[in-house]
């Protein structure tokens, strides 16, 4: 099992490096943007309709601080989208692509169970995600100091990074599930992307109309409130439990489907 785990990590190391370097660039952009955006942002907030601000879950008084700005703009808007792309592309590579290209036959003809193959790939995905998320979070700390001479509350960033990591694992577990169902990379990427876009729409619509408020509970994005962690220092355990529940449920379902299904190119 560890052979597959380490090999998968090795095969993804370049991709991981590219993602991390890209994040470094974006973090620099956000940090460098903050001083000039600080005042302009407050003015800009005034010009937006209050319904839109509410729908987007933006709290104008919080975004004027660096952590508030980063939580609203970086952690709530940008990072989740990157987590979706990262997780879906990893699961597509790890499962569906193996079946589609026929290399799964090499793995399946070895004395290792399907579940162990799946767990090794998933574990490699989780480790990849951990490296990526913690890099994408902790790189903010030195960058803020270096570029804009801003000191941040490190434990709060670690907490936010941890929550973002759990969100990423939840997204990855869902995309592994669809990778196991479809075993065609195109479909395996498209379906979870569609579902996550619907979740995103749910999170917006639930803020516009009170009647639609219930929709937010069906969105992952509701359970990751970066502002609450980073600005209010409030770590919501219920949200964490929901995300962990999604991970456990998806993993069991993925294992059941992958173990039962016919695997052939």
């Amino acid at each position: 099992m560890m052979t597959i785990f380490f090999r998968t990590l090795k095969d993804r190391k370049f991709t991981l490096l590219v993602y991390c370097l890209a994040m470094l660039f974006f973090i620099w952009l956000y940090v460098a943007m903050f001083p000039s955006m600080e005042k302009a942002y407050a003015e800009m907030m005034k010009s937006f309709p209050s319904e839109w601000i509410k729908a987007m879950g933006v709290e104008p008084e919080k975004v004027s601080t660096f952590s508030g700005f980063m939580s609203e703009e970086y952690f709530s808007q940008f990072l989740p989208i990157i987590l979706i792309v990262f997780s879906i592309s990893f699961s597509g590579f790890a499962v569906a692509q193996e079946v589609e290209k026929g290399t799964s036959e090499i793995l399946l003809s070895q004395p290792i169970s399907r579940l162990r193959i799946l767990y090794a790939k998933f574990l490699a995905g989780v480790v990849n995600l951990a490296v990526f998320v913690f890099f994408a979070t902790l790189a903010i700390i030195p960058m803020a100091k270096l570029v804009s001479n801003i000191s941040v509350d490190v434990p709060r960033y670690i907490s936010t990074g941890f929550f973002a990591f759990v969100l990423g694992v939840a997204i990855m577990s869902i995309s592994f599930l669809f990778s196991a169902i479809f075993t065609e990379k195109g479909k395996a990427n498209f379906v979870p992307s569609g579902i996550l876009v619907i979740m995103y729409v749910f999170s917006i619509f639930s803020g516009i109309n009170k009647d639609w408020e219930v929709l937010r509970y069906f969105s992952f994005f509701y359970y990751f409130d970066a502002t609450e962690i980073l600005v209010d220092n409030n770590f919501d355990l219920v949200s964490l439990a929901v995300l962990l529940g999604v991970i456990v449920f998806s993993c069991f379902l993925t294992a059941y489907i992958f173990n039962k299904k016919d695997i052939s190119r």
Partner: protein
Amino acid sequence: MEKPVIKVNSLKKYFGKIKAVDGISFEVKKGEIFGFLGPNGAGKTTTIRCLMDFTRATSGSISILEKDSYKDSVEIKKSLGYLPGNVKLYSKWTGLEHIKFIEGLRGKAVIAAELIERLNFDPSKKVKSLSSGNNQKLGLILSLMHKPKVVIMDEPTVALDPLLQNTIYEILDELKKEGTTIFMSSHNLPEVERICDRAGIIKEGKLVSIENIEDLHKKRLRKIEVHFEDEYSVGEFEFNGVEKVEEIKDGLLITAHGDINSLIKKISSHKLHDIEITHATLEDIFMEFYKRSGK
């Protein structure tokens, strides 16, 4: 009596309404090379995928080395080597990386170096730069390097040049002598005749016949086109073993099976202008078996 190494009992594999494999049963003995012969789409690969537990049977059972192919899949694969036709490998890995990877899963290889040398394979090259022949060489090394007790191959020589085909036949012959049981599918009748002890003939998901290769030789159909320079009549060639005699321009087209010595003697009693003996196609062989089984 020694128990069969591979035992397939009433195996069915349906994909919706499509009956890819429809109730086949056969056994493969220890140290035997068993050919699984059939045209494209006959159900050979589906049967192999069921044997390998890549796909699960709709009904029926498979046992390999007296273990259930589904429940004991991991245990069986410790003693099993598999070579798919047109083997698919990781394009960015080198041959050596493939070997190390499989060693990580199965333990140290026994004959990897020997096979590399024998097949004249360069393991330092990335798979994406290898020809299809070299790809198949690597697949062969990976499937045999642990000296498995059972080898399952799906059209192992497809698209390979004759030289490499011969090397593969030699290796399989040697493995057989060491007691390895080999199950291989093919749609190439001469290949099966050359290396197999027995062959199962499958068409449209059903096993038409299981034959000893020697018997297959005896039953083998030949078409003999003879052009005579002297007088002849159709009737003088109609004897035992001759299936059909058709008149063609200045000669006859004779379809015969089994021993053709008497027929050749009869033909050579005439003055000939030309003669051509061709082996029947695989399709002709199938037709013969179909006719015999009343299908």
